[in-house]
């Protein structure tokens, strides 16, 4: 008998959601057959069978979210009986749990119409329960890391510590004239998807803990647009065209190689400048965004960057990124130019210390050196930098270098 467990597919993964069972109970499966699709924080992943036999005892329904390591089904050999009898306890149930167990006497009056609906029993050790009760903590808010997701002492202690450590954000006194909308007035809200929840958590934490500052640079794109046209004209019909974004990526790679302080990681009060340039490319996907990482940009040609970026974007959009394809960025680029955005600022992707927000290439009137006015394609980029690791002058020097490269683009194809 082999147990099918929720696999850990990446360092940060603590739970996963069953998107779809591709096999039913009783189906015969071979090692390697894809039996289910699982959604992680970042991608949906196919779950192959690790044994051959009959699929049985499916414990996690489609839509259930369960902790990593939870038994979600079994694969039985010849003549074997199912072993696990308790259903996988979903960390987040797919549906609202049904009415409480046991009959409720019909005559019993409802205590209060606003009473919370009955919840699934929370699995917690007796000690964890006692500490939670003493600290006035609702165990439903605590994530269990013990066997089978049991809440144990350390989970409650961590919860208490986190509660104490949470920054006290001063809340402005609401003006009496403009009363905020009543919370109760909001109905029918949609729960956050896993991806939204993760984005919400990460960006909130980043904005609260990383001191951002921003430096914007206006770049003349005349030469680089001309280069792009010539390069693309020389490409075979079916070859991927080089985009503005690819040129920006290549230019960044060159500039970062000269300013490793910007191509750095910040962790535990230490800065780690990197000679390897791994650039995360922000990709919008339905319901959120992903940042596949283009590795070793410092040794890639423009055409390699174009081809690989295209592949990664495609994978991201179809939810097929492997966990090592969206981790380890030393720098990121977020480009909203295709939407006609003039300029914007992005949130850093820690532990990296900087991200570049790229606007649209737009024709602008420009005062030339001879005091005449000409119309030129221009692009604005804004660097968001972590002030713990970088200062304004370095950020500006980096952007000046980036500008120099893009305005003298032939250095990119040397």
């Amino acid at each position: 008998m082999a147990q099918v467990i929720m696999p850990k597919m990446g360092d940060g993964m603590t739970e996963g959601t069953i998107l779809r069972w591709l096999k039913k109970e009783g189906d015969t499966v071979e090692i390697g057959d894809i039996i289910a699709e699982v959604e992680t924080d970042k991608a949906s992943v196919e779950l192959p069978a690790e044994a051959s036999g009959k699929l049985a005892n499916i414990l996690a329904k489609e839509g259930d979210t369960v902790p990593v390591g939870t038994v979600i089904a079994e694969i039985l050999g010849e003549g074997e009986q199912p072993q696990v009898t308790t259903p996988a306890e979903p960390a987040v149930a797919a549906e609202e749990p049904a009415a409480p167990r046991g009959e409720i006497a019909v005559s019993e009056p409802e205590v209060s119409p606003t009473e919370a609906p009955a919840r699934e029993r929370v699995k917690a050790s007796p000690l964890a329960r006692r500490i939670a009760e003493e600290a006035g903590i609702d165990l439903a808010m605590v994530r269990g890391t013990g066997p089978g997701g049991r809440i144990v002492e350390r989970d409650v202690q961590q919860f208490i510590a986190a509660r104490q450590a949470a920054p006290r954000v001063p809340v402005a006194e609401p003006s009496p004239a403009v009363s905020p909308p009543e919370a109760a007035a909001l109905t029918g809200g949609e729960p956050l998807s896993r991806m939204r929840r993760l984005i919400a958590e990460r960006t909130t934490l980043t904005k609260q803990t990383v001191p951002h500052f921003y430096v914007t640079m206006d770049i003349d794109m005349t030469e680089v647009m001309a280069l792009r046209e010539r390069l693309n004209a020389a490409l075979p019909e079916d070859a991927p065209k080089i985009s503005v974004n690819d040129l920006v990526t290549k230019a960044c790679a060159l500039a970062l190689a000269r300013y490793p302080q910007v191509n750095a990681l910040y962790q535990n009060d230490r800065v780690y400048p990197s000679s390897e340039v791994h650039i995360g490319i922000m990709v919008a996907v339905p319901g959120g965004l992903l940042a596949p990482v283009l590795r070793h940009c410092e040794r890639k040609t423009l055409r390699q960057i174009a081809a690989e970026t295209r592949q990664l974007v495609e994978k991201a959009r179809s939810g097929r990124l492997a966990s090592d394809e969206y981790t380890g960025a030393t720098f990121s680029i977020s480009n909203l130019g295709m939407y006609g955005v003039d300029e914007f600022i992005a949130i850093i992707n820690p532990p990296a210390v900087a991200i570049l927000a790229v606007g649209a290439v737009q024709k602008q009137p420009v005062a030339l050196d001879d005091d005449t006015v000409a119309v030129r394609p221009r692009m604005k980029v804004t660097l968001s930098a972590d002030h713990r690791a970088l200062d304004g002058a370095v950020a500006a020097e980096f952007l000046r270098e980036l500008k120099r490269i893009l305005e003298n683009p032939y250095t990119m194809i040397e």
Partner: protein
Amino acid sequence: MALITYREALRQALTEEMERDPNVFLLGEEIGRYQGTFRVTEGLLQRFGGMRVVDTPISESGIAGMAIGAAMIGLRPVAEFMTFSFALIAIDQIVNHAAKILYMFGGQIRVPLVFRGPAGGGAQLSAQHSHSLESWYAHIPGLKVVTPATPADAKGMLKTAIRDDNPVIFMEHAKLYSTRGEVPDGEYTIPFGSADVKRKGQDVTIITYSQPVLMALHAADKLAETEGIECEVIDLRSLQPLDMDTILASVRKTHRAVVVHEDHRNAGFGAEIAARIQEFAFDDLDAPVLRVAGADVPIPYARNLERAAFPSEEDIIRAVKRVLV
């Protein structure tokens, strides 16, 4: 403090008590002329003579019956079973007579005797000669059950057993006889119902008795060295009476407990301890109480299978890690 073997410690206790009290005498198979199967009674026939060191026929129920009768008329017999596996033949004498007489006679007649000998296995003695069965005796009201693991405890507790006015089941272990330990100089006794914390720790409480105490101490040292896990090892020393206070105080500190014994797991004494911990320290537990025990099979003869059937250091380490997950 003298460094002596478990066997010598028992012999010292017998000698000292026989010298102290002329009513104390020994009986059993081959304890006199043959000097005892495990040499515990070596030299005692020569020292105390045939009236006080009595070689009996091979009849355990006869030995038990004779000891009970002698105790009823005021002597203090110490009866040796060659192993506690053979005491099964005497179980009616022990359970229905020794344990009951005080009650049946309204408290007028006492039965101050000791049944002692090796329990347990591990020396390829196969299924019929490897029993532990301490849980059988602990189950019977009227019997005291003692299971010392070290020479010092063996000596101090055997003296207490001999002076006790009630029947005492004194279980030694064949694998302990040659182990050495420091024994206090001079006269001392160790009371029943006082567990001994053999090792201090704050992460997990290991509760055990008899030979597995040594195993648990090794496992605890290994866990401390390799994993930084500090186990508290409690040696119960006596199962009846049982010192729950020491167990509960430790569990309230560590919040995790593992019970270890050589006897079969099913309905073994570990179940009693686990039950009492959850009953009296429920709100202090952070993990279920686990048992490391002998497999629920007749003990095999083959060396490899016998090893697999008894708990090992590795089993203890695994269990400790499991309650720490």
